[in-house]
């Protein structure tokens, strides 16, 4: 704004720089340390090496955890998005019911992660299901991504022009045909973005998983064990690998919507309520 005194603008700019530094310095430090040729995680930086990355990528447990997380992410994203789509299709024409459902959709998001983890652990204990990736962790992940998928799909489907579908029906299309040929193609970008978003949610999930995964490991669980039990020298490298993987998926999801500041804000919000 032109009327603001210049020194306030400078102060704000300086603050902006400090803010971005606060966000980025720890990440840059992690990247630096991941190349540091020292058996101890920390400074000073000696010579640079890629040994830790090679060691991390050669680690069987880590690779298993990576695949576990990938499969779990794909499965829970597919199931969660499909279920959410069904729910939204059912509720979009009944706004009153949708409004009544909202608190129940939001509840799992507000619930502290640790409480959900504990509830699920007890629940599985009673049903006698054996703790592991499938089915217990998958169930937890589906219930975790479902509300987000619902919140992300609902506005897109409600915003859909109803007359397009009505036109198709007037022309004699069966409801299933209308969905397959008209509705779904219209919302496909939203569905793809939602599925990718659901994948990153599942891929990142830690606290809930930690309680129900049993003896198997997902990537975040493996990282947690590395951090809390053995501070291995290749820890920063693992951190950087995970960081790049999640960044990549998030960027992919983001790329499906076009670049402008308002979209970024909306995307980041739904993405971020999550962790």
């Amino acid at each position: 704004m032109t009327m603001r005194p210049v020194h306030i603008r400078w102060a704000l700019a300086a603050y902006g720089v400090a803010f971005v530094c606060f966000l980025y310095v720890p990440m840059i430090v992690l990247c630096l340390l991941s190349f540091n040729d020292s058996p101890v995680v920390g400074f000073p930086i000696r010579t640079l090496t890629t040994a830790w990355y090679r060691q991390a990528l050669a680690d069987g447990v880590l690779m298993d955890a990576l695949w576990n997380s990938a499969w779990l992410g794909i499965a829970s994203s597919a199931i969660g998005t499909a279920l959410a789509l069904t729910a939204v299709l059912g509720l979009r024409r009944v706004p009153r019911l949708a409004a009544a459902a909202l608190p129940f959709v939001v509840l799992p998001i507000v619930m502290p992660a640790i409480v959900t983890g504990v509830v699920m652990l007890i629940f599985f204990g009673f049903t006698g299901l054996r703790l592991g990736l499938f089915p217990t962790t998958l169930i937890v992940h589906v219930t975790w991504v479902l509300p987000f998928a619902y919140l992300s799909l609902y506005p897109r489907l409600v915003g859909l022009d109803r007359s397009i579908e009505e036109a198709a029906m007037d022309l004699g299309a069966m409801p299933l045909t209308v969905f397959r040929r008209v509705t779904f193609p219209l919302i496909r970008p939203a569905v793809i973005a939602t599925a990718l978003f659901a994948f990153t949610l599942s891929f990142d999930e830690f606290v809930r998983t930690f309680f129900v995964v049993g003896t198997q490991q997902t990537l975040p669980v493996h990282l947690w064990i590395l951090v809390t039990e053995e501070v291995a020298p290749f820890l920063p490298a693992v951190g950087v690998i995970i960081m790049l993987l999640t960044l990549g998926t998030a960027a992919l999801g983001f790329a499906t919507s076009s670049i402008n500041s308002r979209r970024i804000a909306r995307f980041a919000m739904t993405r971020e309520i999550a962790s």
Partner: protein
Amino acid sequence: MVILTAISFWTTTAYGVKPIWTLDNYRTIFGSYVYIDTFLRTLRIAGITTVLTLLAAYPMAFALSRLAGSAKTIVLLFVFLPFWTSYVVRSFLWLPMLGRNGLVNFLLVKFGFVSRPVDWLIYNEGAVYVGLVYAYMLFMFLPIYQSLDQQDSKLQEAASDLGATPAQVFRRVIFPLSLPGVFSGCTMVFLFACGAFVTPQILGGASTMMAGNVIGSQFQISNNWGLGASLSVTLMVSVIGCFALSAWRLGLLQLFARDTR
């Protein structure tokens, strides 16, 4: 959830949880200073985290809302990027910053402020604040930014045309209009900080155990499911209570679905 509440009233024996109804678990919680202290500490840490995050996020959100065009998009992207990375990674990022061999100690020693690395940077409440503020910054930043960015600039122009100084415009127009965003951000950060588990476990010490950590250890170390369940119920009731209160004051949509509009 029903099962959880039921278990919280059951007795823990050496062989597991027995369905014998009892109030003992709650008596343990409310009768012992340890658990009451934990809950009070959790609320205090969550409250201070909320205030710190608000103070850090508001100026940035304000500065960003004053930018325009592609500069705004780029800076916005830079602010969001770190939050797209994994949560566990984000929590342990501060370990190599504050630890004995961390960056801060390295710089302190290098520039001669201290003769050898100091230990008080990490494993205390201060480190937990740093970690929590870092982890939850975006929850505060985004709603405030949106409430600032969506303001009609005509209102501000009208105020200054009528002779208001920039400070008055901010105090009387911009700030009041951004309050919904502030409330929404504070609620989210407070809720998430109440249930924090990872950050205090990694960056905190024994004296900064939060409710989440105590619950976790009941289930995974002491195997006292009954006590763990009743601790969870207590945490759940307080968190949902806080949330319901602000949802009632502001409306669920204001708080949550502002992103989905």
